């Protein structure tokens, strides 16, 4: 494993831990989006651009969007 790959994996580990430790839901939505971004970097570094592209949209946009809307609905607008 080259240093760049190791760095990308460490970054994913840090953000995954942050997501797991976050209690506030709005922060969770934003952090999970950033976590998806670190995964995108990981996939790119491991030469899987197609997987990176779907992760970018599904993890970076769709998932946080659904969470944010669910939070708003929970709090009643």
């Amino acid at each position: 494993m080259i240093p760049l790959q190791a760095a990308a994996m460490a970054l994913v580990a840090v953000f995954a831990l942050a997501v797991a430790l976050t209690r506030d839901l709005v922060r969770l939505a934003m952090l999970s989006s950033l976590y998806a971004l670190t995964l995108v970097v990981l996939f790119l570094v491991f030469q899987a651009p197609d997987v990176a592209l779907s992760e970018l949209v599904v993890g970076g946009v769709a998932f946080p969007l659904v969470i944010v809307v669910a939070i708003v609905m929970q709090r009643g607008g």
Partner: protein
Amino acid sequence: MTRQLRIGLFAVSASGLAALLLWAVAGLPDFGHYRQRYGLLLQQVAVGERHATNVVTAVVFDYRGFDTLGEELILFASVIGVALLLREVRDEAARLRDRMRSDAVGLIGIGFAAGLLVLGLYVIAHGPITPGGGFQGGVVVAAAFAIAYLAGDYRAYRRLTPQPALDFVEGVGAGGYAVVGIVSMLLGSAYLYNFGPLGEPGTLASAGSISILNIAVALEVSAAFVLLFTEFLEELSVMRAQGR
């Protein structure tokens, strides 16, 4: 069970799990040293047999095309489920105002949306040639619509994505995939067997029915994700309109 006991139990099992994981990761082949026969074989035969220079697409839409039918139907069924659940409880009388107030955000957003749309269509069209394909391109196209919502208002977004058209496109994408398989059978081969015609490898329409399946999946995925966004955003807008 006391708190201390729980923490102790967790520490023991977590360190055991961590050790097993480390052991497994240490035993993985190095990056770039693939050892399985199936992948190596496919890399040798896929371009010659199916004229698709993107071997992943050849696997997804041809050698393992039947699996992809199942995956596509999973997405189809889950989005239908979301639509059923959310549409039922929605008060249709409540109509929506959701103004976006900054012209700068609007302008930049529309620029982003246009760029994303072109990128998505490019990724879809080049599915058999370069990394990407119907699923990846489809989600990028859907993201373009999500950005269009953020940049404009909800009414403009709904004009861009009329519900009947979305439902229709999603159905055509999901059903079209299955129909292509039946066409293979009518032509006398196995379900979803590539019936060509194969073109020059590396050109857009090179890979026969892989290209058709690719477009069917692109339609299904983009419509499914836009539908998903729409259902959730509509929920929001109705709430705002009701002043809750």
